[in-house]
């Protein structure tokens, strides 16, 4: 149960257009949507929050500042799900701690919830569709039990049915563990569904706004 606080975050060394430093807070259990034209720097912002690129300023999750713990520890806590996931081994299972995970209820729950069976671990990565990769990448990142989620267009490759599944899984996790979530999307309706506040990036500037909650939450 920790807020994600960003103070004076400056990424102008990578995006020279962005001279205005970021200051925002995503409360525990809340989601902040991020929009803006392609190439404006949405993904770069998330990478900076995961400490994947050099930046100035202070990022804190609860009372832990990013620089006070090792980078791998921070990245396990503040987990980034990139727009395109990468797989480096032959089979899916080699990207997980398969033997431990199979006994793990949380793992079996995620696998089933996102429309797979445990035998997905034996599948060849080369035969996965982009949608399957996206859902498996989501399971992979949630297995780290992160304390904050940074999602870069997590449903871009999914059909409607799977999009609903994935939104539900993330909403569940967010609700249960009361974690802050940042969610990049080009789909305005989706952001209105999942998030409470909105960060709009535009040429060198950003704006914050509140989102009127539409009824019912996740469909």
């Amino acid at each position: 149960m920790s807020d994600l606080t960003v103070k004076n975050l400056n990424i102008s060394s990578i995006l020279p257009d962005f001279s205005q430093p970021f200051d925002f807070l995503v409360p525990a259990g809340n989601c902040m949507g991020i929009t803006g034209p392609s190439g404006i720097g949405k993904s770069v912002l998330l990478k900076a929050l995961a400490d994947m690129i050099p930046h100035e300023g202070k990022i804190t999750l609860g009372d832990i500042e990013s620089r006070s713990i090792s980078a791998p520890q921070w990245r396990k806590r503040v987990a980034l799900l990139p727009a395109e996931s990468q797989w480096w081994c032959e089979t899916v299972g080699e990207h997980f701690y398969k033997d431990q995970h199979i006994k793990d209820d949380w793992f079996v729950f995620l696998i089933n919830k996102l429309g797979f069976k445990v035998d997905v671990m034996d599948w060849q990565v080369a035969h996965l569709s982009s949608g399957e990769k996206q859902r498996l990448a989501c399971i992979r990142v949630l297995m780290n039990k992160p304390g904050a989620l940074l999602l870069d267009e997590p449903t871009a490759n999914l059909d409607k049915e799977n999009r609903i599944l994935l939104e539900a899984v993330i909403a569940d996790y967010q609700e249960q563990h009361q974690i802050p979530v940042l969610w990049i999307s080009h789909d305005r309706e989706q952001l209105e569904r999942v998030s409470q506040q909105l960060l709009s990036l535009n040429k060198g500037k950003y704006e914050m706004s509140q989102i009127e909650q539409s009824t019912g939450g996740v469909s």
Partner: protein
Amino acid sequence: MIHLTPWDLVIASGLIILLAITSLLLQLNISRQLIIAAIRNVIQLLLIGYILKLIFNSNNLLLLGTIALVMLLVAGFEINARQKYPLKRWIGFKIGASALFLSSFTMAFLTLVVIVAPTPWYSPQYSIPLLGMLLGNTMNGISLGMDKLNQSVYQQKLIIEQRLMLGQDYHEVIKEIRSESVRTGMIPIINSMAIAGLVSLPGMMTGQILSGTPPVEAVKYQILIFFLIASGTGFGIMLAVWMIAKRLFDDRQRLNLELLRVKRSY
């Protein structure tokens, strides 16, 4: 021993020119490099021939040290010369030269003082050819290992970043690439040790036999040299690959491709 006349070498150079013309006709883009290398080869070897003649007569430690230093500096530079994704100039030279120094010079020193033990220990007749063979082979190995490392890291950038994002430690992320790079650098020397005597007669041994050394004496020296080169190359590659792999990540374990001379992209 039968002495070679300049004409003998002219005939041999005719073969190189023939090869250059053929590859020019086939548009293989190698003629220029071939000719330059052949010309460099002649000039450099003639030069060292005369320098060796001079130094063999003087036995001067300072002169010897200067030559060893020049050899090291040139090898350190050449390591980075034909890389696909070379390191930034100064860093590449620093890493290459220090890995070479730590491996080749240590091996040469050990051999001169403990194993061959000529008097004086730095006797140029032994020290210069020994150091030359060690530096040359180690340089080859390091250069191949570095090329493999930089190329793999560059091509697997997205995978490396993905693994870092998942909270993996950089040691774990780079482990496989690192060992592949060491393996690549070691292949030539392991090959030549494996086939020596069966397929090829190693150059040094051939030279000694041509100049009249009894074959078994020549073989003993050749074995010594093989073992020295293999260990020197192995340790040299490990040093270089470890040093580069460490520098490819910054203090917050971010992949730092700015170390390579390629365009940066995020």
